[in-house]
């Protein structure tokens, strides 16, 4: 016992040192962090390539060097140096230099309605992502897919986390949204060999794209009635099977619709899902879903989950609540599907099967149930991990499941579960915290 006692004290000393170093950064507002990141990504745009060459790398490390690290471990020192020079040190310097001014600006913005502050931050965030991503096509694609994953994960969390059902139907909703949007877009705005000439001038495509996406979402929501109506009487396990059957039905239905390519898939979607488009949809998804789950109407889902009889006795219309949850989730899954189809510009039923289901479920449960932040973290973390481990090829699909099992064992409801996401808290200037602490 005595031998081990020195370890905790050493660890405590280290922790104390760490938190002391971290102290100044606790007063940095989100605005400050965004400014720092912007400087870092701008720096990378201008000197990233030459610095990478100077450090002996062939190109700018696309994913913060994680992929390169596994491929060429001997480059590890260069990668660390690169990350320090481009990201950590510039961000640290900028953040500390602008701390007070950023807090002042944030405080100033805070006097206006919240949406102005939010918009300001969102534009800045987009700038960071855009400057970071345009460095190469791989980053653009990855960023788009991550954002779509965020929408998908959030929408599944509404049913599986907030309402506590184990729904397996999400790949089906994604497929319905993807195919609906693809078919309408190709039919109306693309001169296609299979679907014939465009019915409307293709130049109008970008303007109708949002409407078509919404239409895809609405059709997906309608298809969700097949799962939502049985949910009035059945809960839990049987509903899980119903939703699973729904997923298989949609998949094999598409496989049998030869008009739309059947199992071969459907292609020719116009190139409309650009980075800003996907970004805007992601922000709208996060915003509406977070609004919903924080309202009393949305929290009714939690009441239905935790005790349906009590919810009913407290005037909660449980049927409406279930219906809303399923349809709303399916709507956003449909939007995500439509975006996915237009990012890949090709869809096939094979991508909406069991594998997709495992992936979405993994993202939801990895990130955390009943939590918007959890879903965002889950989607980004999972995709990031998946890209990072790509050089390991097959072994990747051993490591990721093992990690997920560990998460389930030690945090059975996910990393950040049962947390309210309050944008006001996030955007708040941080200089007051000093007085509170």
């Amino acid at each position, binding site marked *: 016992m005595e031998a081990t006692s020195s370890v905790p004290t050493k660890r405590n000393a280290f922790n104390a040192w760490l938190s002391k170093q971290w102290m100044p950064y606790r007063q940095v507002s989100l605005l400050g962090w965004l400014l720092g990141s912007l400087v870092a990504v701008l720096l990378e745009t201008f000197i990233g390539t030459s610095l990478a060459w100077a450090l002996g790398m062939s190109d700018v490390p696309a994913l913060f060097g994680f992929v390169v690290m596994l491929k060429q471990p001997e480059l590890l020192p260069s990668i660390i140096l690169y990350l320090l020079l481009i990201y950590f040190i510039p961000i640290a310097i900028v953040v500390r230099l602008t701390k007070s001014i950023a807090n002042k600006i944030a405080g100033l913005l805070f006097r206006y309605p919240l949406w102005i502050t939010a918009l300001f931050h969102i534009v800045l965030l987009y700038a960071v992502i855009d400057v970071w991503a345009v460095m190469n096509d791989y980053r653009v694609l990855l960023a788009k897919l991550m954002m779509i994953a965020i929408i998908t994960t959030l929408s599944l969390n509404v049913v599986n986390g907030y309402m*506590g059902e184990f729904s397996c139907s999400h790949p089906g909703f994604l497929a319905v949204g993807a195919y609906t949007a693809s078919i309408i877009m190709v039919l109306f705005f693309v001169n296609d060999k299979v679907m014939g000439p465009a019915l409307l001038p293709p130049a109008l495509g970008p303007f109708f794209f949002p409407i078509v996406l919404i239409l895809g979402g609405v059709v997906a929501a309608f298809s969700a009635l097949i799962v939502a109506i049985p949910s009035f009487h059945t809960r839990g396990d049987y509903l899980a099977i119903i939703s699973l059957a729904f997923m298989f039905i949609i998949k094999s239905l598409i496989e*049998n619709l030869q008009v739309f390519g059947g199992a071969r898939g459907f292609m020719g979607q116009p190139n409309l899902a650009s980075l800003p488009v996907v970004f805007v949809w992601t922000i709208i998804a996060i915003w509406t879903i977070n609004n919903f789950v924080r309202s009393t109407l949305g929290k009714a889902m939690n009441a239905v989950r935790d005790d349906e009889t009590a919810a009913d006795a407290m005037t909660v219309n449980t049927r409406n609540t279930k219906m809303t949850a399923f349809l709303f989730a399916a709507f956003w899954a449909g939007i995500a599907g439509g975006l996915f189809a237009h990012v890949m510009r090709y869809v096939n039923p094979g991508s909406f099967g069991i594998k997709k289901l495992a992936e979405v479920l993994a993202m939801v449960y990895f990130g955390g149930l009943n939590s918007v932040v959890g879903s965002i973290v889950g989607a980004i973390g999972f995709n990031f991990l998946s890209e990072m481990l790509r050089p390991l090829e097959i072994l990747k699909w051993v490591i990721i499941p093992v990690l997920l*099992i560990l998460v389930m064992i030690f945090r059975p409801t996910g990393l950040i579960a049962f947390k309210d996401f309050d944008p006001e808290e996030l955007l708040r200037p941080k200089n007051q915290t000093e007085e509170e602490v």
Partner: protein
Amino acid sequence: MGYFLQNIVNALQWGSFYALVAIGYSMVYGVLMLFNFAHGDVFMVGAYIGFFTASGLMALAAMGSIAIPGWLILILTLIIAMFLNSFVGMAVERIGYRPLRDAPRASAAITGLMIGIILETGNLALLGAQRRAFPPLIPPTVYKVGGVYITNQKIVIIVVALALTLALHQFVQHTKWGMAMRAMAYDFLVVPLMGIPINTIAALTFALGSALAAAAGVLYGVAYPVLGPYMGIIIGWKAFVAAILGGRGSILGAASAGFLLGFIEIFVTMIFPSTMRDFIAYTIILLILTFLPNGFFGEPYSAKLRL
């Protein structure tokens, strides 16, 4: 008429695989109230164990130049594969389910799903992507009975499947261990108070289910001698659905639902193009579950996922 009867035989064979795999799902579901999503892949592992056992036994026979008859190798393969695969099942329980006994049930479902993926990719990594051909153990002989062609393979498959189902049913109904399993299915919380070792029973449940899955895997190899790492997905998910359709934890229910699913699929392909098989089969399942929300044989119950 002959065509019709022929399809009944085919459906019985096809349903045998579903039935044997479904029982494994159903037992775990009944006793522990958990979805064992790894079970389809345990079936796959069973088939591979069978493949290696059969190949090994044949090589051994060839080395010693002893003429061991095919049926004896099949029986030995069945027994060895069932025995070894039960350890696979117990390992799955130990790693993926025991640590999560008090966690939400959905979390355990996720670990099951993940163990399934590990088994698939583990197989792929160890054995490579090429498919394996199951050695022909019993040379097919065709009997013609009243216009129906029956191979000896089909007879073996159907008979073994039925025999194992009934044997397991007897075990669960009449032995001390079976009684403990039923008690656990009835009330999870009271069981430890009665001095029944939960961990042992849980392991036993997984072991028995996996043994049956191995039997299904070997029989599958006899009928369709091509094995691949993803073969568990095709049979597994449908067997899972059949297990739930059969009612909670009912062995005969799960087996019947497995055979029913076999019949649905074979007869769908009799009338419609075979690509419509999944579509129609799942639509029927959806309708059954929507209008018979307790399955066929299970007692009415509705469980909420513990969160």
